[in-house]
């Protein structure tokens, strides 16, 4: 018991700090990658290659004046950043980030809490973050902020459904929502991105909307709403929204890596998931997990500096008219396929079944792309036929 408590406390401390440091570095990476994509250099003055820029920014945010609008609801105005910050910090807790670490006192699983409810916990907690945003919009007593908050609530609720639906496919295949079990399944067979490509795509798109990132950053929408829900916030309160947004990004990337890309599994090898746990295995799998997460984080940034923002009706249409029906149809198809393989053919999940499902997904993906390619995702506010 003592061992568990001490190990958990150390893990909580490490994970929390790693996330905060990661988020700080991510703000720098975001700015530098953005600059490179625009043929600029980006911030490179504070420290080597600008590495201390986040520290300078943090210091600035601590020293800045805390403004508080005269007509704001003081209590909620203060509460809002906390409400959006805490869920963002909590969600990473269930994601396994490396293979178990052997210590003198016992084997420590490299996950803060291996909850049986697994990613359901993440879905539940991450959608709590929207309260912070809505409260911020409401408490600011500012029209722009309120609009941002309302948009955030509508957007996050809409895409939460598509996201949840896409994870149902994972649930069907893994038969379990515990993330460590999901990873074990992927290690024995194949990464779920092959047998569940379409689910991954839906999850990927929804994750962008869930984290309020471009092309779905309507709650912020600096062109229309100044800064949306955090218009009235300054100093560390603003910074907390910022940290929350970026740590949500980290969690979403880690979740994508875990659910669809084998978590801490090192590709094309089996030695990392079999045999006795060892320190070198833990370190290497941690590196593999970080690499996968970083790839997705880079994609987030890459997409942000490429795509323009959706219009509000396009956002809603994509969520409700494309992603939700697509996810429902996909669940049906995959459920039938899995039933066929499991019950009729008596297969268990392994490379054979994964590739068979992968083939099915490839066909579905082809149909989907052909269908989407006909101007169905984004169109003008007037349909072509009506003109």
């Amino acid at each position: 018991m003592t061992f568990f408590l001490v190990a958990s406390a150390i893990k909580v401390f490490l994970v929390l700090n790693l996330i905060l440091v990661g988020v700080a570095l991510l703000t720098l990476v975001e700015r530098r990658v953005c600059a490179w994509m625009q043929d600029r250099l980006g911030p490179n003055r504070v420290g080597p290659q600008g590495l201390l820029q986040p520290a300078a920014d943090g210091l600035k945010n601590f020293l800045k004046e805390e403004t508080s609008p005269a007509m704001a609801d003081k209590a909620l105005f203060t509460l809002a950043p906390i409400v959006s910050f805490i869920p963002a910090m909590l969600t990473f807790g269930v994601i396994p980030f490396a293979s178990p670490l052997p210590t003198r006192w016992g084997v420590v699983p490299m996950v803060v809490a291996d909850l049986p409810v697994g990613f359901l916990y993440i879905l539940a907690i991450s959608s709590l973050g929207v309260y912070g945003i809505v409260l911020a919009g409401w408490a600011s007593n500012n029209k722009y902020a309120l609009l941002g908050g309302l948009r955030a609530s509508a957007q996050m609720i809409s895409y939460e459904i598509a996201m949840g639906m896409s994870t149902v496919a994972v649930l069907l295949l893994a038969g379990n929502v515990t993330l460590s079990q999901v990873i074990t399944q992927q290690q024995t067979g194949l990464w779920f991105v092959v047998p569940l490509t379409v689910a991954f795509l839906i999850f990927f798109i929804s994750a962008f909307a869930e984290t309020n990132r471009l092309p779905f950053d309507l709650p912020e929408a600096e062109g229309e709403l100044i800064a949306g829900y955090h218009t009235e916030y300054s100093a560390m309160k603003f910074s907390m929204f910022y940290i929350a947004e970026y740590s949500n990004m980290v969690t979403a990337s880690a979740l994508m890596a875990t659910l669809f890309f084998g978590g801490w599994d090192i590709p094309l090898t089996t030695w990392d998931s079999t045999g006795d746990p060892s320190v070198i295995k833990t370190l290497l799998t941690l590196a593999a997990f970080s690499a996968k997460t970083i790839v997705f984080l880079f994609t987030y940034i890459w997409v942000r500096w490429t795509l323009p923002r959706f219009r509000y009706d396009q956002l809603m249409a994509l969520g409700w008219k494309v992603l939700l029906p697509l996810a429902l149809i996909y669940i049906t198809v995959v459920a039938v396929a899995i039933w066929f393989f499991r019950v009729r053919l008596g297969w268990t999940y392994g490379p054979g079944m994964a590739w068979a499902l992968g083939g099915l997904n490839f066909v579905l993906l082809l149909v989907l792309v052909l269908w989407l390619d006909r101007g169905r995702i984004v169109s003008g506010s007037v349909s072509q036929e009506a003109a």
Partner: protein
Amino acid sequence: MAIGVKVMKRPTQQTSYLRATLKGMALTFSHLLRPKVTMQYPEEKSSKDWTLASRWRGTHRMLTDEQGRAKCVACGLCPQICPANCIKLVPGEDEEGHRYPLIYEIDEFRCIFCGYCQEVCPEEAIHVGVHYENSEYSRDRFVYDLERLTAQTHPVSTLWDPSDPKGE
């Protein structure tokens, strides 16, 4: 739609969001690897793509003769032509009857850097220079007196030559 917005019927390859997205992603990624255009300003003041033009009209400079005296003969043409009225000139005369400026001051804040003073100067004494870094800690430091004007070392402007408009 109530108002008659006409939407052109376009082929799929022009309206496809998927293709446009992928194309855009490829473009931004290719830019990620391209050479950067940023000049690291205080360390690097000119590059092969950009350098200060020789016709640049910046901080003034008063040229001097062999004895180190200002070439100015205090004729008064430059304060006369100056559209911003930024040149203060008090002429003086020595025993041999040579005119020289007792006070010659240029207020760099008022100056609009038109270069008329250089164009009008019969002695080629006052010049605008190829130089732009004149930050100071106080406002009164921006009134350059004769001593400071003669102490400048930057190259003088070639101005615009009507017979050679492209500077070739």
